[in-house]
């Protein structure tokens, strides 16, 4: 905690970085190897795009990516919209039952996904949404909406009261206060929360696995999990690694760029809770 960091310290730092980064690095290395090269462990990359071509030709992976993007974006937009309005009510209006509502929302974010599986399955079939993207969008809201509301509420509560009052004296309605005064100030919070919601929806597996049937309705995680080879015992590891790198690289880029905001969002959701 004090003094100059020594060699041992930097060795530790190196170990942490290696531990965190090596699996992805190794996935990249493997994704560029095809044929029998794959079955020889090497630590330096070569450059063979065969696996990447195969991923897109042997299955509708482009379509899977599109599905994931559509679902994740829709979930983010819906969550932020509903979350922002709810956050105003929860953070800045005092009404009876507010604490209870907040506790309920927090508990929903703790729900085991599998506990809503039966009922969700029934509902999705009843609405004719089985094997469709709208079905997945509805299902994903369980995962993203509670923490979106929670995080936005904590951010909203930190905005100065006088700003809101000035707007009311100026003649704004509550909706105008949210749209014209608070929303522009919530930019960073919305970005952080939206990013977290995007990652959650992009990574979601159980619902997508259970509520889709055909290859062209699957999202990326399911598609990757279900990539199979000629026989059950011969998984096409090269293709799997290539697909993994394709869906992970944008996320890693996002995380590296928005690191600070993500941390702010995560800690606002957890530490203040």
């Amino acid at each position, binding site marked *: *905690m*004090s003094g100059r*960091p020594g060699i041992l*310290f*930097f060795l530790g*730092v190196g170990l*942490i*970085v290696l531990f*965190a980064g090596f*699996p*992805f690095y190794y*996935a990249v290395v*493997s994704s560029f190897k095809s044929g029998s090269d*794959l079955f020889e*462990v090497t630590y330096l990359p070569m450059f063979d795009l065969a696996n990447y071509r195969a991923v897109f030709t042997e299955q509708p992976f482009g379509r899977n990516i599109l599905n994931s993007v559509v679902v994740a974006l829709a979930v983010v937009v*819906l969550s932020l919209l*509903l979350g922002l309005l*709810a956050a105003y*009510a*929860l953070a800045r*209006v005092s*009404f*009876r039952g507010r604490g209870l*509502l907040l*506790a309920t929302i927090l*508990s*929903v974010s703790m*729900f*085991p*996904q*599998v*506990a*809503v599986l*039966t*009922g969700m399955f029934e509902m999705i079939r009843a609405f004719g949404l089985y094997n469709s993207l709208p079905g997945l969008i509805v*299902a994903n*809201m369980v995962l993203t*909406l509670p923490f979106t509301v929670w995080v936005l509420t904590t951010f909203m509560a930190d905005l100065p009261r006088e700003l809101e009052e000035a707007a*009311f004296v100026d003649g704004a*309605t*509550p909706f105008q206060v949210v749209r014209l005064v608070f929303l522009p100030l919530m930019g960073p919070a919305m970005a952080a929360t939206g990013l977290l919601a995007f990652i959650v929806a*992009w*990574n979601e*597996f159980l619902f997508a696995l259970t509520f889709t049937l055909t290859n062209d309705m699957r999202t990326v*995680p*399911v598609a*990757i*999990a279900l990539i199979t080879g000629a026989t059950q015992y011969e998984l096409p*590891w090269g293709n*799997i*690694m290539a697909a993994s790198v394709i869906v992970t690289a944008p*996320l*890693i880029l*996002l*995380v590296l760029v928005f*690191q600070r905001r993500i941390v702010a969002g*995560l800690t606002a959701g*957890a*530490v203040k*809770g």
Partner: protein
Amino acid sequence: MVQARIGLAKSGLAKSGLASQKVRAALWFLAPMVLALALAAGWPLGRTLYYAFTDATLSDMADHGFVGFDNFWNPEWGGLFGDAKWWRAVGNTLVFTGASVGLETVFGILIALVLNRPFRGRGLVRAAVLIPWAIPTIVSAKMWGWMLHDQFGVINDMLLGLGLIEAPIAWMANSATALGAVIAVDVWKTTPFMALLVLAALQTLPGDIYEAARIDGVSRLRVFFRITLPLIRPALMVAVIFRGLDALRAFDLMYVMAANNADTMTVSVFARQQLVDFQDVGYGSAAAALLFVLVAVMTAVVLTLGRVRMGAAR
């Protein structure tokens, strides 16, 4: 139901003052969110709990009979409480939760302590630590599945190269190592979350405490256990609870790494297997319902304790 409880604060609807205007707006603002949650969480949960007391099957869920507590316990075939596979899943879930949250906490604190110290390139290292967290669980499972491959895996290659093992190990096929491997992957993936929360807590600590301790000549280890740990304990507890509740419902990792293998099967995997693969909606829902009750009770306890402690602090 929730809406009905949000009464207007004694003013009544007829008034048009600011407070009542805000309360009315709040109702409209909350309605879409409450509706969405009721639709996506409340209703499905209620139906799951209902089906737990039926003998419904997936092919025709509407055609079912009410069987009371038979799915949980009955003299003929035992129900969940008489199902060895269920108890195995419960055991796996608890071991998985305990081990992975415990290890994550220790590693998370260590990494946070390292990152809390200013050095050149710290921002970069902090970003690198976030990588495992950002990688989809499915992808982590596949990546590690490949690294742990019995014949061509890099882990075996490294261990052989270092002379730590003599023959390749079939990590996932071996019931002694399968759960351990899954735990290791989970620790790799979620330690960053823990580290960041601890780091955030560390950075709120005032520096002068350490100055004082250093002047008093207290050893670093003592400073950590006597000063740092007690100060970050509230934040640490929150993180541990969040992660614990999250680990209890784990599904993706073991499902992708080992499918329905009994060695790694958690309660969530068990429930889904009954529900989807065996088409036994009643039995699967009963398992899901038990998991829900467990998590709900723990959440309620945590929320109540949290409130009591907050009350005491005031």
